[in-house]
């Protein structure tokens, strides 16, 4: 079972859901694909066993060979290359590493350069295996790193993917290939708007989808009506709770705090198992 936890916007409690679900389930791998702000480890405090760097390859010019013919720039469908009368420029964030420019260059003037985009950390917290993608500050393209993190996914058993918020390319990269997606939202007009966008993306990707409504007693009925109209199951409603907020601010998973919260997340686990369990690998 590979389940993505996503949300249309940040700050809805997505990480809280991912972390506590992982702890309740146990024997699970958590892939933190929210690589621009990977905070699952702040709650799980995993023992880190390995840290490895992740690189992408970008072209580099050998100036003594280049004749500035611009063949490479014309070829590049991603507009990563610019050739001026006496300069060759690459915008590394735009390069998709298709390899084409090296082939079309008539002077064999292009070689490769490795560019570090971030780190992957492997750690263990109890029976939760935590794999964290950590994008380098200032790096504009999270998707290659997310793909790398997802390569680490176990082929069997439970895998929880903490996806980046929003409906970006990065979010799609994270949830693609999962068996089901849980969207965490709030019952406010903003929450509804972002849920509409996110559920549309999940639908296009063909994943079954359920909703967790956080701070469910604050706000209006828009989100519930939307879920009913679209046939999206509401898997769990979490009313606002001071204890939850305090635990969060201290970096303590709330399932550690009380039996009450263990039963809440057990309920979510059961709802996921019964809704999507037949998708089990």
């Amino acid at each position, binding site marked *: 079972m590979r389940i993505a936890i996503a949300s249309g916007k940040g700050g809805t409690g997505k990480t809280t859901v991912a972390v506590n679900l992982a702890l309740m389930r146990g024997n699970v791998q958590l892939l933190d694909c929210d690589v621009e702000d990977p905070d699952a480890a702040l709650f799980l405090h995993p023992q880190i066993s390995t840290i490895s760097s992740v690189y992408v390859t970008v072209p580099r010019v050998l100036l003594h060979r280049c004749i500035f013919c611009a063949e490479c*720039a014309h070829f590049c469908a*991603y*507009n*990563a*290359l*610019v*050739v*001026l009368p006496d*300069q060759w*420029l690459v*915008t590394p*964030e*735009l390069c998709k590493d298709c390899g084409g420019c090296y082939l079309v260059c008539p002077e064999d003037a292009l070689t490769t350069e490795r560019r570090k985009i971030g780190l992957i950390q492997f750690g263990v917290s109890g029976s939760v295996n935590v794999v964290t993608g950590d994008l380098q500050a200032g790096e*504009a393209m999270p998707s290659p790193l997310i793909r790398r993190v997802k390569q680490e996914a176990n082929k069997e058993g439970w895998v929880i993917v903490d996806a980046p918020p929003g409906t970006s390319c990065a979010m799609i990269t994270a949830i693609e290939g999962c068996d089901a997606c849980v969207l965490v939202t709030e019952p406010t007009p903003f929450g509804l708007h972002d849920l509409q966008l996110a559920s549309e993306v999940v639908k296009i990707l063909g994943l079954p989808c359920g909703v967790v409504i956080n701070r469910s007693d604050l706000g209006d009925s828009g989100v519930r009506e939307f879920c009913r109209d679209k046939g999206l199951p509401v898997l769990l409603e979490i009313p606002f709770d001071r204890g939850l907020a305090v635990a969060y601010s201290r970096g303590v998973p709330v399932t550690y705090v009380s039996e009450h919260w263990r039963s809440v997340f057990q309920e979510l686990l059961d709802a996921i198992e019964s809704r999507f369990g037949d998708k089990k690998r």
Partner: protein
Amino acid sequence: MKIAVSASDNNLDTMVDPRFGRCAYLLIVDSQTGEIVSGGRNEFAAAGGGAGTQTAQWAIREGAEVVLTGNVGPNAYNVLRAGKVKVYAGVSGSVRDAIARLNKGELSEISNSTVPPHSGMR
């Protein structure tokens, strides 16, 4: 001197397009005569990504030494800087007006991009 202006249409009385990379038209104007000498519809306006780098390359290849626009992202700005093009951003109003203001020295050159990458796509 040639001036590249991001514009909403193919004439001097149209508005300056606030986006550089994804401007509808890029007009190359001769600063002496005030006439449009080249440029036209921006075929990179609908590019998936990297519109800015390609629009910047186009401006440089047309011989522009100055760019007038609303906002410019970092990728485009890097290319323009490499091409030693002076960039005046935050420009609005008609193209004709913008050029007049440049000639009177009323516009200020920028030394950095004005918006994050991919802003023109929103």
